[in-house]
């Protein structure tokens, strides 16, 4: 049943990329336990606005866990304590009255902070630009039934394709590696015949771009899988590494 709770928030405030940031404390009062985490921040922000204080900046859009816009590290966990859940789908019934809640942005070299909890994830777009697509122009496609795809392969491709590009995997990784994100796309396309003509070129280019963006390497902590709101599996990284070696051999 719905009730209300009071919380102490410690929020990372940083006015711009250049300025130093620091934690600020705010009271979140009378929060319904049916509210989502972002709705709790809305309540706090509306109150700040009424007192002419700049509201806490955070990215968000769909608020149903699919657009990948939102995300913050809450009490040390990317997207908060609930597994397989984006921040917008985390509900306040998971917190207790009087809890202290520490809220920080994703922290990674590849994701420079823009303001407060908002980071620049443009690196993810550039990794996709490096090869996360099938080079087909509109109009070139054969009939959709021309290539049957075994259901298990289609299902596994769909498992990988569910990535929402939120960046929690990077935030959770002690090396700030973007391996899970990159591997999910590579593996989706490697599992499908449509992706095969470019598979060697794709994996090499995407892995190179990932390195260029300043993300660390994977050292198999599996924190990414634990943080991923879409439960993308680490086996994608294994598959990516296999693809990568395969591509290097094929290239020589």
């Amino acid at each position, binding site marked *: 049943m719905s009730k209300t709770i009071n919380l102490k928030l410690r929020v990372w405030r940083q006015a711009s990329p250049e300025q130093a940031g620091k934690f600020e404390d705010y009271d979140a009062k009378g929060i*319904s336990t049916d509210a989502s985490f972002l709705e709790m921040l809305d309540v706090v922000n509306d109150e700040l606005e*009424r007192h002419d204080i700049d509201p806490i900046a955070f990215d968000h859009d769909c*608020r149903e866990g699919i657009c990948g816009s939102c995300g913050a590290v809450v009490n040390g966990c990317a997207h908060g304590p609930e597994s397989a859940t984006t921040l917008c789908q985390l509900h306040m019934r998971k917190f207790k009255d009087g809890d202290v809640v520490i809220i920080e942005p994703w922290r990674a070299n590849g994701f420079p902070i823009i303001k407060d909890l908002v980071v620049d994830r443009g690196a993810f777009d550039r990794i996709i630009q490096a090869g996360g697509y*099938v080079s087909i122009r509109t109009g070139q*496609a054969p009939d959709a039934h021309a290539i049957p795809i075994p259901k298990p392969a289609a299902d596994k491709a769909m498992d990988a394709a569910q990535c929402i590009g939120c960046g929690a995997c990077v935030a959770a990784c002690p090396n700030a590696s973007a391996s899970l994100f990159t591997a999910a796309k590579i593996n989706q396309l490697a599992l499908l015949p*449509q992706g095969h003509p470019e598979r060697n070129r794709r994996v090499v280019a995407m892995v190179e771009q990932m390195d260029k963006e300043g993300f660390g390497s994977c050292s198999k902590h599996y924190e990414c899988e634990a943080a991923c709101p879409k439960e993308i599996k680490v086996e994608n990284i294994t598959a990516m590494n296999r693809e990568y070696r395969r591509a290097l051999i094929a290239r020589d």
Partner: protein
Amino acid sequence: MAIATDYWKIAESAGLDSKIPSGPIGQKWTKHKFDMKLVNPANKRKFKVIVVGTGLAGASAAATMSELGYKVKAFCFQDSPRRAHSIAAQGGINAAKNYQNDGDSVYRLFYDTVKGGDYRSREANVHRLAEVSVNIIDQCVAQGVPFAREYGGYLANRSFGGAQVSRTFYARGQTGQQLLLGAYSALMKEVASGGVEMFPRREMLDLIVVDGRACGIVVRNLVTGQLETHTADAVCLATGGYGNVFYLSTNAKGSNVTAAWRAHKRGAYFANPCYTQIHPTCIPVHGDFQSKLTLMSESLRNDGRVWVPKKPGDTRPAHEIPEADRNYYLETKYPSFGNLVPRDVASRNAKDVCDAGNGVGATGLAVYLDFTDAIKRDGMSVIEAKYGNLFQMYERITDDNPYKTPMMIYPAVHYTMGGLWVDYNLMSNLPGLHVLGEANFSDHGANRLGASALMQGLADGYFVIPYTIGDYLAKAGPSGVTPDHPEAKKVEAEVKQRIDTFIHMTGKRAVNDFHRELGLLMWDECGMARNEEGLKKALKRIPELREEFWQDVNVTGSPGTLNQCLERAGRVADFLEFAELMCTDALHRSESCGGHFREESQTDEGEAKRKDDEFCYAAAWQYNGVGETPTLHKEALEFENVKLTQRSYK
């Protein structure tokens, strides 16, 4: 009959040319493709096209036009084009493939869509949509979109949203996501090739019109606060719908009417703004802190049974209410379609039973969607495979387990059929301004069928605009306008002044306070059911609320940085103007049709009653100033193929 009143004027001559090609319905598009002028390949690279919005329509349009050789600039307000709200569509995409051999055809999809739209869409556009639907599936599969498949390796289909054939393609409950990521990947491919220049975190704040031709936009860089002026030879708006005028809707928080409204204020007509779709299967409202409503795919209605207690005010838990005391009202009232009636019908019936006091849950504004019989019939594992992710989502939000207790649902604002008026070429009455996807008005009439929004977005972007833009550019030639053109400078100065005004607003109320109040007013008076008295009440209140906003809103921070308060203020200010036009349109259309239900116009059985001899037209509104009565232009709708009948799903 709509006659001029204190609320609107009527144009002397319609002045709208829909440019529908002549000839039989099945050959119009083919003939038109041949009749259109082409731009030779070497000249294409000399033309610049601006695309605003990167959802299904915008991303597919930008990618495809770049593939053809045009220089494209694409803009979105999100941090990445992959986040546009098309991503949230769950159920699927229709296509007349007839892979199930169950009697589907292009003509049947066309027919169903015209009927589903309650005969308020343009036949020629809808037929073209049905024709290209088959190409969309081919294109998406080739891109690597992992549609659901059967064990033989071929694509799976389901029946969806009241269709009696299985023509819906899907990717679990995430079809919109997979289609958008497909279009996004095509867009990224073109960014890599240099054909598209991508501008994320930019919000369009005005349209530049020179000598009657749209040829540029002013955007705010949301990170630095800088205004940027971009000029081109054509502008395409694919900026989605205006459902957030209700504050609570299933739209993303950022979805807004600003780009379309700014274009309207620069001369583009806004058509049928009162046509809004209220989706029947959403999680009910549960508190005033609530920021949005969550939709659950209506595919749930394939197996779930909708019911309420027969006795008003029955507070027993669902499992204690025996069969005899339950009213499965959709099954009783509509024996042939049952729980699968179209969205407008399902929503209105839910409202009716709740208004009669039979609603359930803490607020009484909910009905049950019960899977008990389906679980008994098919087993838990089958239901879990079909709806597992939706059940999980429901439980996460409500803390209730739908495998054990029936879901509670209530209708919520979901989609807007109205939008900027466009001709058959998707061009507005302003030459050069093209409008795609949900932002235009043309294909869904007064009600959109399930799994048709994704189809229309991708049809417009992949297969319509890439052809029609060539015809426009070949005839119009380059605009020759650059950002230092006096008109461009003037528009940019106006945008800057508006932002300065906002920044100096030091009232006492938060932006959201106004948005919530407007939303509630619109939901009460211009929501699932409308009447003259309520609409007039809203039309009196909206200008007052707008006045209060400009007196008492507080906008914090500075214009030169990321400022989400300023962003929201601009959007709410535009909703406060737009809402008035929406209510005016709803007031003038004194018939009921599709999602627009005027209480004064219903059949004896309480169904929407059209008045075809008076209202068989699209209402395109011309802007005359804030608070000024708008001018109505009528585009007569001619039905040469589908016979107008009272829709019946009994």
